[in-house]
């Protein structure tokens, strides 16, 4: 133990005597470890952002979409052969409302894009049309005014609830409540505003949305009979799969799909979406970190190179130490400790580097980062292993030197 401390001391001394060289050698490891940790932190951050924003949409959310998930090119087929695309209509909605026992709320949704304007300003906005239940299912919060009511929906009123980006662009500092905006040329009265929500899992600005009654959207704006999707909320998170199955069987029965036939609709829930997103981001992170770890390898080779030079340069020192009674193992440990000190110090600086890069990224860009203990532990043990692996050969060369030849070395 004492001998090891002595060796660590000797290692630090000799690294300190060659400050510039030690720093440049370490730089490879600093960049390698820094890149790996930074990439992992960006990956972890992205994962958390995506998970968070999917959960923001309501944790018990079930999404029902038209079309079959297994016929990927059904859109093309429909266009080519004039096959009627399956649609979700008010009848499907009623059927679910009537028969489902495991859901609390159900709401139809039409999502479209329209130009919204007020006085001389206009903005491209996302129209999210739903019923009064859409507010809760979508997990939206009213900032000022109120959301449209059940009777507003059944009376097909031209009312709108607008998001923060819309307010900023159309109204600036004026109070929008009670004002009349135009959506695709039609007048709508602003009855409420939505709290800011930021971007969703796919990077879309959720604050540029305008919510209007689904009936108004169907009859006055887009001339549709169907919905883009139907959203439902299960009574609890653990019932979400059962609720999805229940909806499936209701719709199969209602839409006369016989046993063994494929469904012409999809039922997805949060857990499934989460699983898919987590897998995608996980693969992405591993790939990027893998690329970054190549620089760690290069850094390791740099250490080996410098250690070989150092052994040659210090041949005489090795001879002196051996003449004074240093055993092969002492010399081996001395040089091994030196390369480990190099790589571990580099690793520590690399982590500091990654931490500051992550902090800067999450402060000044849209990227969210998250540094966890795991990549730091991995990076540190990895750089120790690199020091060991790339240090062992030079150290063995040093240890095997014959003292007589080493003392004679000029």
């Amino acid at each position: 133990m004492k001998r090891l401390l002595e060796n660590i001391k000797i290692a630090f001394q000799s690294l300190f005597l060659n400050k510039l060289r030690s720093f440049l050698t370490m730089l490879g490891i600093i960049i390698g470890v820094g890149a790996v940790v930074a990439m992992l932190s960006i990956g972890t951050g992205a994962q958390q952002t995506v998970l968070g924003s999917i959960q923001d949409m309501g944790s018990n959310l079930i999404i029902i979409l038209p079309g079959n998930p297994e016929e990927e090119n059904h859109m093309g087929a429909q266009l080519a052969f004039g096959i009627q695309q399956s649609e979700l209509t008010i009848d499907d909605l009623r059927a679910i409302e009537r028969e489902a026992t495991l859901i609390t709320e159900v709401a139809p949704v039409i999502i479209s894009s329209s130009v919204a304007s007020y006085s001389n300003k206009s903005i491209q906005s996302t129209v999210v049309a739903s019923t009064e239940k859409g507010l809760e299912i979508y997990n939206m919060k009213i900032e000022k005014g109120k959301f449209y009511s059940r009777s507003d929906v059944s009376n097909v009123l031209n009312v709108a609830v607008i998001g923060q980006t819309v307010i900023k662009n159309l109204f600036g500092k004026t109070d929008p409540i009670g004002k009349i905006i135009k959506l695709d040329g039609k007048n709508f009265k602003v009855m409420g505003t939505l709290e800011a929500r930021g971007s969703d899992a796919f990077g879309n600005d959720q604050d540029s949305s305008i919510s209007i009654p689904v009936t108004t959207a169907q009859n006055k704006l887009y001339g549709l009979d169907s919905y883009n999707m139907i959203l439902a909320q299960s009574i609890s998170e653990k019932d979400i799969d059962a609720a999805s199955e229940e909806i499936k069987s209701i719709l199969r029965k209602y839409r006369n799909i016989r046993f063994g036939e494929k469904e012409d609709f999809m039922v997805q829930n949060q857990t499934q979406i989460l699983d898919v997103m987590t897998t995608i981001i996980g693969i992405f992170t591993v790939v990027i970190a893998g690329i970054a770890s190549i620089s760690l390898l290069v850094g390791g080779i740099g250490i080996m190179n410098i250690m070989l030079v150092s052994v040659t340069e210090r041949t005489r020192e090795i001879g002196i130490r051996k003449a004074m009674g240093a055993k092969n193992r002492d010399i081996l440990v001395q040089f091994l400790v030196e390369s480990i000190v190099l790589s571990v110090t580099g690793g520590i600086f690399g982590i500091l580097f990654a931490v500051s890069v992550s902090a800067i990224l999450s402060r000044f860009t849209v990227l969210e980062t998250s540094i966890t203990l795991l990549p730091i532990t991995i990076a540190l043990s990895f750089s120790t292993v690199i020091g060991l692996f790339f240090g062992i050969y030079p150290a063995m060369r040093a240890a095997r030197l014959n003292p007589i030849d080493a003392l004679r070395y000029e």
Partner: protein
Amino acid sequence: MIKNNKDTIIKTADITKVYRLGNIKVNALRGVNLEIRRGEFVAVMGPSGSGKSTLMNIIGCLDTPTSGQYSLDNVDISKLNDNQLAGIRNKEVGFVFQTFNLLSRSNVYGNVELPMIYSTERIKNKKKKILDAIESVGLTGWIKHRSSELSGGEKQRVAIARALVNQPSIILADEPTGNLDSVTGEGIMAIFQKLNSQGKTIIIVTHELDIARHTHKIIYLRDGIIHGQEEVKNQVSAEEKLKQMPKLEDKLTAN
């Protein structure tokens, strides 16, 4: 008491050393029989190529003989492995080299401490022993100086202190004055004579008769065998000679 003090410390029996240089065999030593007793002060002399260095390497346990036996302090060295040799060197041998061989980046204290770092036994009063060794060569006050800042004579004194610090059985000096001017060299010989008078066994390899005449016994080596031995009568006293020698500075200013 005296008899015990004159114990045989080095005994070689017919040792040979054969090197291979490519296909050529070089017989560096061809059967050397040598006996050195505790407390002796011996010079090994011979022209270059006589096998002096090879003999020194074997006596210093840096190398083992091709054949024959060598025992140091009653331990048979001939058949030891590298690590065992390292242990013997650490405990039993103090080296002084022509080119000093100090660690240039360490200070005086660090250099003298070096053999202790590799000692396998627990050393008590480590610091005091180091300071004592430094004091015995008159370098107290230079402890914090890096060895690269020292003059040749000072470097060689550090080397002697380093050779002393583990209290080895023998001190082995290879041309210790070879890189020094005559006054400084005489100063180094004075230290060796003082250490010998305190009972240290010292072996010096040299090709200068002047230096060899400071010792008790001269062993002549030629072509890998001992050619003759001679007791030194009228041993030169380095102290006396230093007093007679005009100071180098005086000479320079006189001219």
